[in-house]
């Protein structure tokens, strides 16, 4: 039983990461009907930028771990948001009127570009985050020793998700985003600047992805230029699981996938852990392609 | 003999009853018109016949066999061809290629025969070219064979769709607003074309809003309103039917 809860909490922590990345996919798909293949690489960029900032600014020594991490997260999120906006402007906006396949290929090209840029700028090898900066202690909850980092990660993910949810549901701009996701043409007629909305989506999504990258770097300790591929594909599975285009869906899907994967790895086989996500993906697309919470995308027959 | 028998056909979308217990027959060799105000469910009935939608209830008997549940391409093979209300041509392909698409279901050569270029396959290819050009001549578009479909005039595009439908060698052809966008001269030519189609032994079922065309060319009419059949009979009977007049023109508020 103890093993179960350990895996459950582990799954939730990782699931939070998947959820943050998934939100980026789902928001972009919602407004543009585009699968942003380069999104996973924005996550990777977040991890690398985090490392660079962390090491070069020596924040932990100056202001202590907690404020440092927060400051780091904010900086990373802003930087990745900018990169996301540039990506949209360069690789996707010229293709708004083109067939879908063109945008897909462009996204792939951007992904290849980013991955190789990271490899060229940094190194093809695994890079290591500094070890001793974060608490290693475990907290005892209900008789279980749960690493405190897990709790921090999960809570951070929750906070960010809650902030996004609030933003989308309660603010005017959030409503504009939702409107553009349902019907771009109608949104334009209502005076919504769809270009701005799309740019905003390409700032928020990547920002969350970048934050996730930073967290992964801090939690797992090492990063690699291709990490965005695996995480990205699993996060995309999570987005589909919850219903592509559906923001609460991405959150639920991410957490659910994290748990399924952790339990599957523990109880079925660890070697097939990565395959679990793909199996879930294929199953969902065959059995219930609109996802658990339903696809919030206007479908034209 | 009855070629097509629609019995108690119903279709709802969510809460909306688009087609409500509709029944009518189409006699072989006749030209039947399906008319009614906008939103009456006429195109939905067509979609139910051709397998694009599945009904919630009822049967579609064609040549004695129920078509409900069959995929569209099988229904085409059985002998029902259709044109679409919004033209659905292969816009970026040539006129000839569009008509060749109709000939597909009457040919048999598969991928292996194609790679081996068997004698049967070559003969079949030549034959389908010949038939495609024949259908284009029939609608007077043979000279446009090389042109892309999207470059044709609207009226010619409708004719091309008919040519493609005829290439499937149908027993019944279902035309959804064939005169849409046509001027008087084109409509006149269309009427003549429909009659010549009938001369070929093909039964015609059409939806049309152009009452002049409908009254002149159809031997019987079926009138729908709000998804239900409100009248059927000869053009003369329908023209005099007060219920039909009410459906189209509304009831005078003084009465």
């Amino acid at each position, binding site marked *: 039983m103890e093993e179960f809860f350990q895996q459950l909490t582990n799954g939730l922590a990782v699931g939070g990461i998947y959820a943050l990345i998934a939100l980026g996919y789902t928001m972009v798909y919602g407004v543009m009907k585009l*699968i942003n293949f380069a999104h996973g690489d924005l996550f990777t960029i977040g991890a690398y930028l985090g490392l660079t900032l962390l090491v070069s600014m020596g924040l932990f020594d100056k202001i202590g771990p907690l404020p440092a991490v927060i400051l780091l997260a904010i900086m990373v999120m802003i930087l990745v948001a900018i990169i996301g906006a540039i990506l949209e402007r360069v690789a996707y906006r010229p*293709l708004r009127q083109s067939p879908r396949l063109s945008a897909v290929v462009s996204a792939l*090209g951007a992904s290849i570009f980013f991955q*190789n840029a990271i490899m060229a700028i940094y190194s093809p090898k695994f890079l290591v985050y500094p070890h001793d900066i974060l608490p290693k202690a475990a907290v005892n909850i209900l008789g279980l020793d749960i690493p405190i980092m897990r709790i921090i990660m999960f809570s951070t993910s929750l906070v960010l998700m809650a902030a996004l949810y609030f933003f989308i549901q309660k603010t005017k701009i959030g409503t504009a985003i939702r409107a553009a996701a349902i019907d771009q043409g109608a949104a334009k007629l209502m005076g919504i600047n769809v270009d701005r909305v799309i740019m905003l989506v390409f700032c928020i999504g990547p920002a969350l992805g970048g934050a996730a990258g930073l967290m992964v770097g801090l939690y797992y300790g090492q990063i690699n230029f291709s990490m965005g591929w695996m995480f990205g594909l699993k996060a995309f599975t999570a987005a589909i699981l919850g219903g592509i285009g559906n923001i609460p869906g991405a959150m639920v899907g991410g957490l659910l996938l994290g748990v399924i994967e952790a339990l599957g790895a523990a109880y079925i086989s660890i070697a097939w852990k990565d395959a679990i996500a793909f199996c879930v*993906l*294929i199953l969902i697309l065959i059995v219930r392609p609109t996802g658990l919470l339903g696809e919030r995308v206007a479908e034209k027959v | 003999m009855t070629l097509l028998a629609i019995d108690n056909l119903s279709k709802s979308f969510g809460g909306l009853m688009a087609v409500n217990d509709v029944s009518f027959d189409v006699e072989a060799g006749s030209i039947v018109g399906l008319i009614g105000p906008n939103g009456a469910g006429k195109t939905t009935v067509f979609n139910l016949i051709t397998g694009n939608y599945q009904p919630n209830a009822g049967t579609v008997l064609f040549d004695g066999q129920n078509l409900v549940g069959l995929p569209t*391409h099988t229904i085409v093979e059985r002998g029902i061809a259709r044109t679409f209300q919004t033209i659905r041509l*292969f816009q970026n392909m040539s006129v000839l290629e569009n008509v060749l*698409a109709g000939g597909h279901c009457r040919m048999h050569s598969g991928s292996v025969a194609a790679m081996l270029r068997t004698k049967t396959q070559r003969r079949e290819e030549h034959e389908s070219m010949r038939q495609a050009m024949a259908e284009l001549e029939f609608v007077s578009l043979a000279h446009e064979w090389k042109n892309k479909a999207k470059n044709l005039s609207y009226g010619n595009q409708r004719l091309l769709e008919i040519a493609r439908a005829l290439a499937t060698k149908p027993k019944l052809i279902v035309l959804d607003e064939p005169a849409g966008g046509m001027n008087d001269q084109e409509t006149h030519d269309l009427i003549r074309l429909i009659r010549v189609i009938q001369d070929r032994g093909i039964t015609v079922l059409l939806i049309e809003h152009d009452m002049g065309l409908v009254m002149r060319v159809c031997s019987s009419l079926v009138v729908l309103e709000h998804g239900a059949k409100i009248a059927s009979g000869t053009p003369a009977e329908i023209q005099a039917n007060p219920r039909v007049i009410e459906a189209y023109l509304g009831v005078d508020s003084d009465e």
Partner: protein
Amino acid sequence: MKSTNILYLAFALLMASCPMFLNAYWTDVFNNVGLYTILALSLNVILGHAGLFHMGHAAFYAIGAYTTAILNTTFGIPVLWSMPLAGIMAGIFAMIVARPIIHLRGDYLLIVTIGIVEIVRIALINNVFDITGGANGIFGISRPTVFGYKISKPDQFFYLIWGFAAVTIFLFLRLEHSRFGRALMYIKEDEVAAGGSGINVPHHKLVAFIIGAVWAGMCGTIYASKMTIIAPESFSFAESVVLFTIVILGGAGSIPGVILGAFLLIGLPEVFRGLAEYRMLVFGAAMVLMMIFRNQGLLPPGPKNYDIASLLPAGGRK
């Protein structure tokens, strides 16, 4: 057709004389180009002609290669004899996995095919059924022998590979200009209209997948015997991306376009070997730029010629 026939013949003659001018290194480059040409042509049937977004082609390649490897190292079956079996295995696999996903909408199909190729790769690494050799793969695959003549040097492989490529091009050209080829065109252009015209859309999509898979599988045989060692990382998603890009950038649906695409994407980076680090960077950027400025590819398919001169109305406009 006549003028294009001459072009193909000229190309064939040019290629046939190549090994006389090229050193071993460059012959091998051309061998790679040849393999990718065949693979890309097989993907072209699925992606270019039928318009199905397929990014899992490396899976079919892998199954063919591993079938040959296993039959050869475990049962001693000569490599070329195993080629049809490799193709059949890949074809059966395609039939099984494609059937449930054939109806999916474009983007979704794309994602599922990615999932499939990854599952295949993971299965190979995990030594599924205990025959795939795990992450190290299978080694000791024999070289092909034709009537006792062993093919082992690059220029020998050159003729084997490009001979197979020539056969492939020949058969696929015929396939393109046939009822089947046209059916795929119609499906790509407008599925609903195709169905309404009497074309069995699911059937044709499935057959397209199977044909593409069979050819990729047979190509896997040649690859396995050329390398004598195969391992899962040769059949990753990245390989599928390369094939996908060759087809799209070369000209989806156009056989000459795909051939050109293979030459450019596989051959050109060899020219810039020195700048190895930046090759992929340029590659990625080139993809984005191509889509913005020429998304139909370098050599998109042109209008088809139909042999109807005898059928035209007398005095009609040609």
